[in-house]
């Protein structure tokens, strides 16, 4: 059985089959929602942004030329929609100070995280991510979760390839420090109970 590609769905939508769009929404809703959530910071707003993104994408579908992947094009829309939303709310996230990271620290953190339950760990990471600037959260998600090439990420966030590289390097250090502050006390507590 041949797999239906995004391009096939787009062709169907263009020829008047609106329902084909539900397949694309179903395929990308979680990633779009996650990106929106990591940008705007709460589920209610993220749902609104994600919905807005899909409606905008549908409206603009005629202008999608297929020079980039549909996902790249869609993530750029969710990124821009989230930025507009944040601008409206004028919410500013203060940047985390970056300290030096050493190998031993990373090892300890990995150990500490193993003691935390999956759901708790997920919530903790989400909270830590929210302490990062919006752009950093998106960069980390696209690079480490979606495993997108740097070139495609630079197209989404509209910054140069080198800048993406630098920002990614900084943001992972920032995330590490935030997590360290959250996880270390739990780990120490666990150790003292042992």
């Amino acid at each position, binding site marked *: 059985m041949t797999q239906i590609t995004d391009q096939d769905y787009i062709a169907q939508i263009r020829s008047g089959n609106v329902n084909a769009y539900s397949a694309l929404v179903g395929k990308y809703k*979680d990633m779009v929602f996650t990106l929106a959530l990591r940008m705007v910071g709460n589920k209610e707003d993220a749902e609104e942004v*994600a*919905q807005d993104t899909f409606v905008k994408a549908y409206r603009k579908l005629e202008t999608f030329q297929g020079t980039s992947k549909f996902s790249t094009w869609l993530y750029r829309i969710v990124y821009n929609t989230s930025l507009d939303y944040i601008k409206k709310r004028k919410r500013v996230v203060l940047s985390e100070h970056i300290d030096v990271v050493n190998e031993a620290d990373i090892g300890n953190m990995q150990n500490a995280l193993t003691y935390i339950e999956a759901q708790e760990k997920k919530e903790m990471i989400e909270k830590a991510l929210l302490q990062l600037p919006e752009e950093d959260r998106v960069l980390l*998600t696209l690079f480490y979760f979606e495993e997108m090439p740097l070139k495609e990420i630079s197209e989404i966030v509209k910054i140069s390839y080198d800048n993406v590289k630098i920002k990614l390097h900084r943001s992972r250090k920032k*995330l*590490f420090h935030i997590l360290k502050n959250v996880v270390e006390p739990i780990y120490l507590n666990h150790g003292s109970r042992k």
Partner: protein
Amino acid sequence: MEAENKKLDQFTKEVIQDAGLSSPTPDFLTNVMAEVSKETATEKVYKPLISKVGWLIIGSLFILFSFVLTRFSLGLSILGDWDLSSLMIEKYKPTIEIPEIPVTYAYCFFFLLIFVVIQVKLIRRQLDKNLNNLN
């Protein structure tokens, strides 16, 4: 330094993968599709039955015919030299004097009639198309 970067890179990857994806509410897809359907309904823009070019051609032809007919009219009627007076029954001869209709006017009326017939055909076709789309 290189090893440290690699380790941090791996650590970040694990952390982000652990965080995974979040899902919107279960009715998200329905809501999006409802919005999209609304968009499709409002998307219908007015499309004239006869395009601008069509009107230009019709207008030009109309002006051309009017000009030719008024300028070069030889006073000939569509019926040519046929004498239909024999068909007239004296009894039914109208008592009211009907003013003579100029030939040009008759031609114009004839063409107008053709336009109306074409329009009706086009309107019917458009209405059928819209009905089919609704079904």
